């Protein structure tokens, strides 16, 4: 990995020195290396400040702004999807309820699942990674910030389109996995399934772009000294997730496009009458769909591993074992997809294999849990809100894991397939495995992002009500499922006897709503009314993001850190502490080698530009056009191509400025 190949071993004479612009040469060159308040720091602030006005706002490519935009937008969509969930529980609270009609109900559960999975869970995790990872590894921005900016706009436009379609009675209605033939040309009437296919194309393109950005950032932009052995666990989790995304997401994008070709161009991929196969879609979807669960779960494991050492006041027990567990979980998750298809006519022997694989996932997960327990047992606990949510995660995830073992075996799965038992299981693992750690992360990093700490009392109220609400809402669904209540029915008769438990579930949902309201009040109170500022490291944590002010300066670090341990802030003072000599006048960072993180080259980050926004907008126009017209599929490609061209085209002023700082390898 570290060989230099065809590179010259000696510096070449600097041929280009003469061509440098005379005007630019007048400005004295200022290099970084001094702390806040210095001349270099002032210059850095100026270099990294955003351009004014609307165009400047739309052009921002700073990872912190992008990460924050992702998280805020994801919570906005989650709120809408949560309201849909509430409506469904309200509908089912009583027998023979006709508050909602069957067609609208179909759209509701499809939208709820699609939104939660594609517009909330994955983007919110990627948003956190975008914000936290560069701070944690000691760099100034991500590797391809304009690509992530473009990804954000694609995500926003995709989500708004989906909700626009829903508002005009064109919401997808065949479940969050849009099975064919229900979503195919024959039964998927109108444009409903088309919008689902579009949304998937958007959100997966977004996910892939951010994943490539994060992977490259982690591998090449770590602070000198942060070898892979020293890398924080949250960064490991983000790396594993991003690599998984790169291997899994193309599948669902491909699949959704093939369905779209069936609908639009008359191909026959999923049409059994013409040699196609409906089951093919299930394979394509679940080969992506199972790893998808882990795109959500693994970052959450990263949150937990970041939070526990801080509140146990000691380094993580079994750091290496946790890294290996994360990687193993990533690999195993690609071998589980058929356990979503136990009720199809696949060979029984194959199903047994997938049962075994499904059980194996318990091994790395258990290993991590034991490491966390050991860390907690050997530490001095500080019971703050983030830590409470971590404890909630243990409890709720454990129940979800137990029902997961039940569903992993074929005979049990066949009994409860498509019943509320599955709904209970998936909500326990997703809420337990992702939402609890997400809230923990939110309380934990909130002071870093906003400079203010969320209220503890309201935080504890939020936790306890949410914990009770979630269990009250979803535990009864296990029993309803065992009693035979199927998923996706819009109403049921009183004679089924499902009413009392459904009512309990609805009450749980109301408690959830109250807890969310308390959370919202806490947010508003803290952001708008709290005067007290948080310090750089309010929890006394050990990783690099806590070494800079809260909120961090636009350039993150006035001098990039040099790292010699896993918790640099807990380590005794080192001999070499920071990097100096990068430009303070262009947006410059340092690349390091992949394994050992030795300094390699200086790197000029891309400047903010409007073109990523324009590109995302023109891609949106193209995709919408292609829903209604086949020629639109071809002609609509021209504007995005132009936008990408302008995006790439060198900016003369920027090039001149960068040339002053150029050194040939």
């Amino acid at each position: 990995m570290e060989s230099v190949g065809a590179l010259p071993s000696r510096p070449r004479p600097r041929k280009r020195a003469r061509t440098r612009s005379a005007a630019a040469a007048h400005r004295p060159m200022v290099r970084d290396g001094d702390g806040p308040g210095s001349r270099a720091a002032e210059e850095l602030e100026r270099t990294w400040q955003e351009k004014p006005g609307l165009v400047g706002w739309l052009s921002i490519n700073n990872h912190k702004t992008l990460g924050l935009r992702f998280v805020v937008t994801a919570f906005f969509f989650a709120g809408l999807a949560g309201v849909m969930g509430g409506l469904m529980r309200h509908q089912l609270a009583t027998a023979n309820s006709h508050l909602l009609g069957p067609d609208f109900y179909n759209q509701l559960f499809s939208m709820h699942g699609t939104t939660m999975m594609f517009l909330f869970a994955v983007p919110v995790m990627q948003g956190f990674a975008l914000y936290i990872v560069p701070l944690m590894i000691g760099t100034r921005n991500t590797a391809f910030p304009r690509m992530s900016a473009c990804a954000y706009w694609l995500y926003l436009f995709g989500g708004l389109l989906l909700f626009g379609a829903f508002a005009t009675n064109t919401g997808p209605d065949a479940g969050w996995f849009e099975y064919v033939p229900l979503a195919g040309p024959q039964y998927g009437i109108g444009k409903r399934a088309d919008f689902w296919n579009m949304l998937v194309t958007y959100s997966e393109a977004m996910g892939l772009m951010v994943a490539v950005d994060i992977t490259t950032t982690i591998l090449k932009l770590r602070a000198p000294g942060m070898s892979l052995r020293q890398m924080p666990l949250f960064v490991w989790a983000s790396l594993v997730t991003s690599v998984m995304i790169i291997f899994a997401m193309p599948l669902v994008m491909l699949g959704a496009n093939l369905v779209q070709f069936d609908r639009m161009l008359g191909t026959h991929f999923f049409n059994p009458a013409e040699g196609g196969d409906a089951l093919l879609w299930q394979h394509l979807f679940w080969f992506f769909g199972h790893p998808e669960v882990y795109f959500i779960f693994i970052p959450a494991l990263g949150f937990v591993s970041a939070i526990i050492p801080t509140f146990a006041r000691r380094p993580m027990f079994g750091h290496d074992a946790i890294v290996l567990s994360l990687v193993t979980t990533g690999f195993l998750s690609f071998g589980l997809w058929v356990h979503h298809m136990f009720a199809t006519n696949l060979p029984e022997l194959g199903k047994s294999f997938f049962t075994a694989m499904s059980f194996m996932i318990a091994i790395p997960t258990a290993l991590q849990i034991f490491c966390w327990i050991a860390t907690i047992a050997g530490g001095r606990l500080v019971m703050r809100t983030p830590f409470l949510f971590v404890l909630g995660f243990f409890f709720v995830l454990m129940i979800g894991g137990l029902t997961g073992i039940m569903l992993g075996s074929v005979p049990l799965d066949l009994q409860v397939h498509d019943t509320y038992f599955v709904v209970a299981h998936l909500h326990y693992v997703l809420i337990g495995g992702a939402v609890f750690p997400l809230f923990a992360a939110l309380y934990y990093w909130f002071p870093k992002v906003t400079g203010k700490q969320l209220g503890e009392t309201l935080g504890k109220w939020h936790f306890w009500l949410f914990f009770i609400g979630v269990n009250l809402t979803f535990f009864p669904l296990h029993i309803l499922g065992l009693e035979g209540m199927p998923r996706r029915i819009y109403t049921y008769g009183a004679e089924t006897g499902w009413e009392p438990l459904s009512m309990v579930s609805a009450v749980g949902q109301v408690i959830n709503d109250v807890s969310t309201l308390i959370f919202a009040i806490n947010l508003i109170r803290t952001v708008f009314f709290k005067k007290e500022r948080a310090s750089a490291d309010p929890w006394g944590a050990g990783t690099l993001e806590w070494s800079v002010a809260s909120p961090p300066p636009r350039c993150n670090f006035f001098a990039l850190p040099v790292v010699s341990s896993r918790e640099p802030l807990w380590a005794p003072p080192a001999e070499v502490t920071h990097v100096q000599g990068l430009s303070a006048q262009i947006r410059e960072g340092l690349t390091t080698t992949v394994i050992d993180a030795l300094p390699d080259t200086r790197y000029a980050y891309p400047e903010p530009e409007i073109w990523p926004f324009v590109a995302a907008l023109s891609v949106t126009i193209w995709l919408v056009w292609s829903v209604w017209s086949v020629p639109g599929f071809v002609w609509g490609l021209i504007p995005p191509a132009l936008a990408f061209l302008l995006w790439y085209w060198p900016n003369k002023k920027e090039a001149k400025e960068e040339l002053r700082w150029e050194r040939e390898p």
Partner: protein
Amino acid sequence: MGARAVNDRQAARRREATPASIPAVRKGDALDVSELPSYGFAHRSLMWWGNAGMMTIEGVAFGFMVVIYFYLRDIARVWPDAGSPPDLLWGTVNLGVILASAVPNYLAQKAAQDRSLPRVRTWLYVCSLFGIALSVVRWFEFTALNVRWDDGAYGSVVWVLLGFHSFNLVTDVLDTFVLTAVTYSKPVEGKRFVDIAENCGYWYFVVLTWIPIYAVIYFGARV
């Protein structure tokens, strides 16, 4: 050989392989990097990693299109289920031309690594001509598939497989045009040579993926 000797040798190799030909130097409690190069080729550049990510994404998509081809072939009673196997002529011509295009591509990449602007321009022009030729041949390939995309599952999978590769082909040809033009936009920064070298790297991907896809499209319906 003792474990220690192996360790020493590895350590020595790692020291030699430390990519920065101009090292960072220690100054007091700081690491001074002001003399480090501002760009690097191959895996030293971030562009290489981004490119590798893109190639993986597309490689996965291609791989699964081939899987889908054989999945559908497996469940079909007759294959092709409609139409007849594609004519060999144009696809094979394409294979020859695309393999030959690797030569100017290699020379363009080499010229970019040597940062020789005149040679880069020359070979990018040659690459562009190859790209145009390949796009024309590709057009004839579509006319010689002997099946329509809506004739049946066979037609669908063949069209989409060829279509995806064509999309990659055309995209990279357009990229080559743009990069050729960029060499005329003064001033040319050193990092543009990295972009050109990486675009050549991507072209190898287009060439290499065509070999299995050619085999599947042209012989999947024959053997």
